[in-house]
């Protein structure tokens, strides 16, 4: 049976296992609204309305929602690129005010520097902030993450010599190398082909099991969200707001155990699909009515 998990604002209500219960949230998003001004039309497009959400340490949180519902807007605010119109975002109790070393990001379009080799792209994450690791430590750490993402041997390659999937591996390695507390990922596998995508999801689950980052993961693939996340936040459009937060009570490690043939996987998938479809239908009917 599909089981609808009620929207959660109180950590005590969180799912079974108790892994998250009672912990202090790492990221707190409180009544956040966001929008973009259109200077010519003198209007403001509201992208997100009154979003409240907590992310707990060590949790893998996925956000699913239709295109244009404000997912990128939300992650950009957590990263510190833009400020909410209303409400607050705090990380470990401190208000987000620009990017910081505790939050690394993996971009949908990879955003690797085309003029740098794989090695130097990863190094970029370690060379700007102080204290800078010394040369030996740098080399060890870079070698370690490159091995982790399966890019050993490609240190001296340039991004244009790599496939899309490999470029994103560089992006992931760059985000992991400084061992940040939080990994922000905006549709990281959205631009890679389906087969590579599946393989990368599996590898990524393994990597995160090893490194233990808190992951804030945006996707528009329900399968991907259910397969990877501890909780899935379903966002509806427009303006985006949280429709439901679904606990994913599937055992790990999921890919190793063939999660997609687990009946529970199908149930959760159906459930989320239902939520989003009602959304799409509602939007259509509402749009026609107005």
């Amino acid at each position, binding site marked *: 049976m599909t089981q609808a998990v009620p929207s959660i604002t109180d950590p005590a209500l969180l799912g079974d296992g108790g892994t998250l219960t009672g912990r202090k949230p790492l990221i707190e998003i409180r009544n956040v609204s966001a929008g973009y001004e259109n200077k010519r039309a003198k209007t403001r497009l509201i992208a997100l309305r009154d979003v409240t959400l907590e992310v707990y340490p060590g949790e893998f949180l996925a956000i699913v929602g239709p295109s244009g519902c404000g997912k990128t807007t939300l992650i950009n605010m957590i*990263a*510190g*690129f833009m400020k909410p119109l209303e409400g607050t975002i705090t990380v470990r109790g401190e208000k987000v005010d*620009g*990017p910081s*070393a505790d*939050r*690394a*990001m993996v*971009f949908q*379009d*990879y*955003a*690797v*520097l*085309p*003029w740098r080799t794989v090695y130097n792209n990863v190094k*970029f*994450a370690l060379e*700007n*902030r102080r204290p800078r690791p010394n040369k030996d430590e740098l080399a060890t750490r870079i070698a370690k993450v490159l091995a982790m993402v*399966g*890019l050993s*041997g*490609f240190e001296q390659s*340039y*991004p*244009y010599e*790599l*496939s899309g*999937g*490999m470029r994103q591996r560089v992006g992931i390695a*760059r985000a992991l190398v*400084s061992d940040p507390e939080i990994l922000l990922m905006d549709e990281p596998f959205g631009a890679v082909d389906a*087969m*590579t995508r*599946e*393989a*990368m999801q*599996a*590898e990524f689950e393994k990597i995160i099991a090893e490194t233990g980052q808190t992951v804030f993961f945006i996707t528009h693939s329900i399968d991907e969200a259910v397969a990877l996340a501890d909780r899935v936040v379903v966002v509806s459009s427009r303006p985006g707001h949280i429709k439901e937060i679904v606990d994913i009570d599937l055992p790990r490690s999921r*890919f*190793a*155990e*063939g999660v*997609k*043939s687990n009946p529970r996987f199908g149930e959760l998938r159906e459930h989320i699909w239902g939520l989003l479809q009602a959304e799409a239908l509602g939007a259509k009917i509402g749009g026609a009515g107005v």
Partner: protein
Amino acid sequence: MTTVQPAPAKPDEDVSSITEAITRSRWAPFRSLIITVLNLTVFFTIWQLIALAEVINPLFFPKATAMFSAIYTGFADGIIGPELWHSVQNFTIGLIIASVIGIPLGLLMGGVRIVDLILSPYVWAMAALPRVALIPLLILILGFGNSMQLTIIVLSAVFPMMVNCMEGVKTVDPSLIRAGRVFGANGPQMYFKVILPFTLPFVISGINQGIARGLVGMLIGELLGGGGEGLGFLLDRAGDQFDAPMLYGTLLILAVLSVGLVQGMRWVERRAAPWRDQSRV
């Protein structure tokens, strides 16, 4: 119910590194050179045959051999050498001045809004204005001398450089800027590690356009400026004297010069920004 084993996640095939030695013919590196030499030989031979047949008035269509011998004697008698040197020297100095002014200013315009707002109307007006229109004014101000010739080169080259540098900075991929911020780049680090490398190909194409426009500026200055020096002057005099072989010879020298510069810059461009040329093997 199902007894089917789930397929294990396949490792990405990209990861296994496969390299293979490539065996090419020994002649491969020379192939394009050989083709070019053959091509030019055929071209000049046909030219020679047409000229010998005198289907076109030899007054404006000399024999290819006459042109080559005019070039040879021109150099031997010290007629071409000093003029060529004059032009090359002027052009080089003009281009250096234009780069020193145009590149930093263009980069600044791209990065600092207020500088852009103030300078843009003048830059666009000057970039669009045909350079010849300035000659009378420049002659009025600077007279018929070298400084006038140099000024026209600088004015020709500097604006395309500025515009390209400005556009380059403005088109920096916003994702790369975000990546810079996420990974802690401060102002100067962002500029030197993200913005400038991204802009480099634009700077080079600015220099390319500067070279092309600068050459035109150089010739205009020498042809119309009445300074009595340079390849332009040589052209002018050869025309006046109905010296077709010399006229063609000078044009050939100019063509070789321009092609050399353009090819040289293309080479630089490939070296400086190999990521832009992804399909090249």
